[in-house]
């Protein structure tokens, strides 16, 4: 049975750049920490922070498939999806189950980056820029948690890669290509993603970078 398909846009450029940047930078965060390269760990961490802030803003003002409101579904839809009531050729964007994974992935990385901002000890090497905002005991607890929480991040990545392997290998869905080039094959007549607005992109990017820079310099007047 050959359904007639055509290529439509699925993921906008900002979503793809954010995704692949995280795919590269999260391992770099771990490697720099393992090798005590704190100069790079703290700086790269702020790039990750900016990416996360951007992705969250983009989740409200971005294209259709980037918006949380378009892909985060209630339990009924997730259950329906699990029962097989979903046609990947007729839907563009995250499926209801994958949507939960997106939220979980962003939350786990955000928690890790958030802890990093407070971690460290001023007399014992590098510190996050907000370290002085919390007490010594709190900072110590956050630092310890930040150290083991990386395994939660790894677990989430492992889940992500396993899911992709299953979808690609067993269900024969082409997931990786669209995340690279943006387009993917869907049933003829199914509408693709909306177009990205340059103005909204620039607005989101400026806010994201601005907040990350503000945090880097100690989050005045909080700091």
């Amino acid at each position: 049975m050959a359904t007639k398909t055509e290529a439509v846009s699925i993921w906008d450029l900002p979503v793809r750049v954010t995704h692949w940047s995280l795919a590269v930078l999260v391992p770099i965060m771990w490697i720099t920490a393992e090798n005590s390269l704190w100069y790079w760990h703290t700086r790269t961490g702020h790039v990750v922070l900016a990416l996360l802030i951007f992705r969250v803003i983009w989740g409200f003002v971005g294209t259709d498939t980037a918006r949380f409101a378009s892909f985060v579904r209630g339990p009924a839809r997730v259950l329906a999806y699990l029962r097989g009531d979903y046609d990947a050729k007729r839907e563009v964007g995250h499926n209801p189950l994958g949507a939960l994974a997106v939220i979980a992935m962003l939350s786990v990385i955000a928690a890790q980056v958030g802890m990093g901002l407070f971690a460290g000890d001023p007399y014992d090497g590098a510190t996050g820029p907000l370290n002085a905002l919390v007490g010594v005991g709190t900072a110590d607890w956050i630092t310890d948690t930040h150290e083991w929480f990386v395994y939660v991040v790894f677990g989430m990545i492992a889940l992500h890669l396993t899911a992709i392997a299953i979808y690609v290998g067993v269900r024969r869905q082409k997931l990786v290509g669209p995340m690279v080039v943006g387009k993917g094959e869907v049933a003829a007549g199914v509408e693709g993603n909306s177009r990205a607005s340059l103005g909204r992109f620039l607005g989101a990017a400026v806010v994201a970078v601005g907040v990350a820079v503000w945090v880097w310099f100690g989050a005045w007047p909080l700091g």
Partner: protein
Amino acid sequence: MTRTAIVRLIAATPLIALLGACSGEATEDAGPEEGPAAGGEPPAEIAQRQDNYEAIGDSFKTIREQLEGEAPDMAAIQTAAADINTRLQRIPDLFPEGTSMEAGYDTEALAAIWEDPDGFAEATQNAIAASEEMMAAAATGDAAAVGEQVGNLGLNGCKACHDKFRVDDD
């Protein structure tokens, strides 16, 4: 970047392999190619000094935490200050030659420790001296004086030595 760092970086690049193993510790102590310790145990002093510094850090944090509160527990501060002093005096025995990071061990101790033994001895003595001043301040029961010594010990003791003799590139 140091050589170990590069070796580890290369070893760590296939993150997926790590995820398959599902345990970060695997790479930590994996390679037989990592260091002269291949096949044998690393010198016990490495773990001993790491535990020692960890304990010094804990006692130092105890003091700083007490000072953050309304009514610092002077007895706890005195105990912690004495503990720091005792442990700092063990440092000279915990750095046998050839146990640097450059020698391939899983440590942040730089070869500079043995290249500049006088400098390392001086840095250690500075820290011990600062810890004695801390003990004296704690004995007076004056929280403000202890607070001053936190800065002195932290900057002139701990940090001054870390900056020269420990991997620390922030």
